[in-house]
């Protein structure tokens, strides 16, 4: 029997929404297989990994803490991905946003002002946007590939962080540890639920999702970005300048990543440390696609990805599994998603060379 792939007439809407769910299901099944190979009971492992972390309020709070940067960055990136601008350097923009936002906190150390936090927010957004403006400028001016430039700038950003944290930003009374001072209260995000780490950043993420949703569904900007991604010539025909779209989407995604960085240092971390993010900027790429580049979808996919971080920690502590398990899961999820997305445009056919089911082909068992 022959298996063939046949292009669909148009994209299947059902598959667009179904494919992330199928990918999650397959990831679950294959992770059980991997647990079994590692010699642990799959059921217990899956429970520890996926259910255990969210059996308490503190667990949920922690989930939202981890989801905050993922959702913020994921939504920001969705602007670029919809317009075929590939910002892979959100991790670097996050780092710079943390430095500018957090830097302000250190600069005004012990200054008690209600304006400090808003200023830090602006500085964080600004820092990330500036870092993304470099690939934007290079692309618009010299037609360089933003995938490469934005990615390379991640390492530049991390070196800057490394320099600053060992030099100018190092805490004066910190025994030469490469860490900044702990931020004072006026520079810390307020917590939403006492006794947990859940902070106001989650509200910012949800707020950003609402704005993005309005832009996408109603506003001409969302329309233009979509057109630019789907049909660049049609965008030009409708008076949209490609360069403007490039600037816009890179500044939005950079600003969102910068904000996420500022929120990390001003929320859960509370100071500037050598490693600010466990790869949120890269994971957010998966988050954006898993959420179908849709703000609401990204909220859910961000929470799911946050769960893999929590699950990884739990598996490490309770089952002595290596932390790499988290990366394995995220990778599997992305690959299954890419595989299932193939069926948005193609359908699978078995056997007979018939395109429309009729008497003969149904005898040969065509599967639709």
């Amino acid at each position, binding site marked *: 029997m022959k298996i063939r792939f046949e292009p669909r007439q148009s994209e299947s809407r059902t598959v667009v929404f179904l494919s992330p769910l199928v990918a999650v299901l397959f990831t679950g099944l294959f992770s059980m297989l991997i647990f079994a190979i590692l010699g642990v009971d799959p059921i217990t492992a899956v429970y520890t990994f996926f259910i255990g972390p969210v059996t308490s309020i503190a667990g949920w709070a922690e989930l939202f803490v981890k989801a905050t940067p993922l959702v913020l960055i994921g939504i920001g990136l969705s602007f670029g991905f919809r317009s075929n601008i590939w910002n892979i350097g959100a991790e670097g923009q996050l780092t710079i946003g943390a430095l500018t936002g957090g830097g302000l906190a250190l600069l005004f150390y012990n200054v008690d002002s209600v304006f400090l936090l808003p200023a830090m927010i602006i500085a964080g957004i600004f820092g990330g946007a500036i870092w993304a403006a470099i690939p934007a400028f290079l692309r618009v001016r010299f037609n360089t590939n933003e995938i490469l430039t934005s990615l390379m700038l991640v390492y530049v950003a991390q070196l800057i962080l490394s320099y600053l944290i060992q030099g100018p930003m190092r805490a004066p009374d910190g025994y030469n540890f490469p860490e900044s001072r702990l931020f004072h209260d006026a520079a810390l995000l307020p917590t939403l639920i006492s006794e947990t780490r859940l902070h106001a950043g989650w509200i910012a993420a949800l707020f950003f999702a609402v704005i993005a949703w309005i832009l996408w569904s109603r*506003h001409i900007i969302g329309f233009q970005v979509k057109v630019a991604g789907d049909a660049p010539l049609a965008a030009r025909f409708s008076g949209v300048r490609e360069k403007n779209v490039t600037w816009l989407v890179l500044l939005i995604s950079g600003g969102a990543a910068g904000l996420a960085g500022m929120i990390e240092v001003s929320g859960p971390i509370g100071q500037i440390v050598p490693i600010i993010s466990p790869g949120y900027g890269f994971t957010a790429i998966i988050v954006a696609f898993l959420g179908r580049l849709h703000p609401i979808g990204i909220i859910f996919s961000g929470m799911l990805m946050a769960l893999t971080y929590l699950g990884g920690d739990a598996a490490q502590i309770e089952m002595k599994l290596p932390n790499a398990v988290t990366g394995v899961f995220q990778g599997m999820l992305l690959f299954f998603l890419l595989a299932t997305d193939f069926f948005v445009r193609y359908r699978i056919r078995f056997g007979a060379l018939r395109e429309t089911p009729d008497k003969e082909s149904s005898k040969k068992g065509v599967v639709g």
Partner: protein
Amino acid sequence: MQVTRTRLKLENITKHYPGIIANDSVNMSVLPGEIHALLGENGAGKSTLVKFIYGVHGADSGRMFWEDKEIQISNPSEARKTGIGMVFQHFSLFDALTVEENIAIGISQELATGGLSDKIIQVSNQYGLPLDPSRYVYTLSVGERQRIEVVRCLLQNPRLLIMDEPTSVLTPQEVEELFKTLRRLSDEGISILYISHKLQEIKDLCHKATIMRNGKVVSECNPDDETTRSMAEMMMGKDFISPERRENKSFGSTKLSLRNINRVSHHQHGVDLANIDLDIKTGEVVGIAGIAGNGQTELLEVLSGEVPVGDEGIILLGDREVTNLNTNDRRKVGMAFVPEERLGHGAVPNMSLWENTVLSAAYSMDLVIRGFVSKVSSIAFCKHVIKKFNVHTPGPNTFASALSGGNLQKFIFGREILQNPKVLIVLQPTWGVDAGSAARIRQSLIDLTENEAAVLVISQDLEELLEISDRIAVIHEGKLSPAYPVNEITIEEIGLLMGGVKKSEFSIRGTDEN
């Protein structure tokens, strides 16, 4: 040779594609030495049928006979061995290789080794296809490139030659040369299956015509016994409406002026525009003829503002200079544009029709209010377009990619025309559009000029231009000839201009062919 024997016979060929039946129980036969036309609108199933004959793809059912023996051809190389040659509409040539090298790539190894260039010269002399084997392809005209494809087929001694719309890229003179060659081949007993939708050509050239519609053979006829009109009716199955034009039109003041447009093309193999001057008056349709790739796309881009006008160039709309306005600002002062590519340029494939109205009508029809897209107004305008221009579609939520070429083009024309433009500029208005929709579109262009508008039509379809234009200019290698009133210029003269001969040189023509 027995005359009664058929060269090729098809019995009940059926081929399904998802959602459509491309060929539905097609029967036809081609006699030796016959030039057999396969006539039909776009999407009638002609291409599917010949691709089956040439072994590009299989059929779901049906039988094929080659000289009275049943055969099965599973790939093009088998077809060539059998004696079937095909010249595709789009050439497969390498620009950086010579004629000989290109031919060697496409034929069997025995043929390609030893004295190939002599064989090329011999074949090309024998059939009136002058070709220099050592020339590089990029130096050749489109007509010459086609000769390479024809010679490549002939070297393999085919007994059936399939030609897919061979004249769409040729000047009238080149067409005449090609026809001479085809007639000579036919005299030698080679059958030719000639695919076209150009009726006059079929009357001039073909012995027999098989007419297809919606995948079925609807009629067979002798083109000599038919008029172009009667064949058009068979092809479309309904009364053919040819556009009505007003006689004795009077034109108003100059509406659109182009002065000294120079523009370096930013396309990879584009053509630079050079010193283009043109005036169009209110109420006038001006046509620009020319072979594809002579600066048409570049001209439209400059006019629509998608690409800035080069140094010194000026575009005037009435008395108003619009040279430095961007696309949307030009729309605001009354210009409208229809690009060549429907899907991807004139419309976004994966967007609904109502969203596609926003593409060009966002500001002129107030579809965007304070930055927000008004779905209600857009849908209303979209419904208006669908109704007025008779677009066959389930409704405004249908994706643009789901519409047939003709319907989408009607939609795009409706969208532009219902914005009441003062100047409408269109490129290839009926390219790949079924004849019914094409007629409607042409009529709408003529109607528009009655509302004080000026229309510029850039097209490769000469028949179309002669039908609707008041004056015709020709673009060749980015240079535009003066515009001549249609009754003061002949098809032959237009053909010469298309081939790059200036009008003042017409008398000494004939010396440049070697």
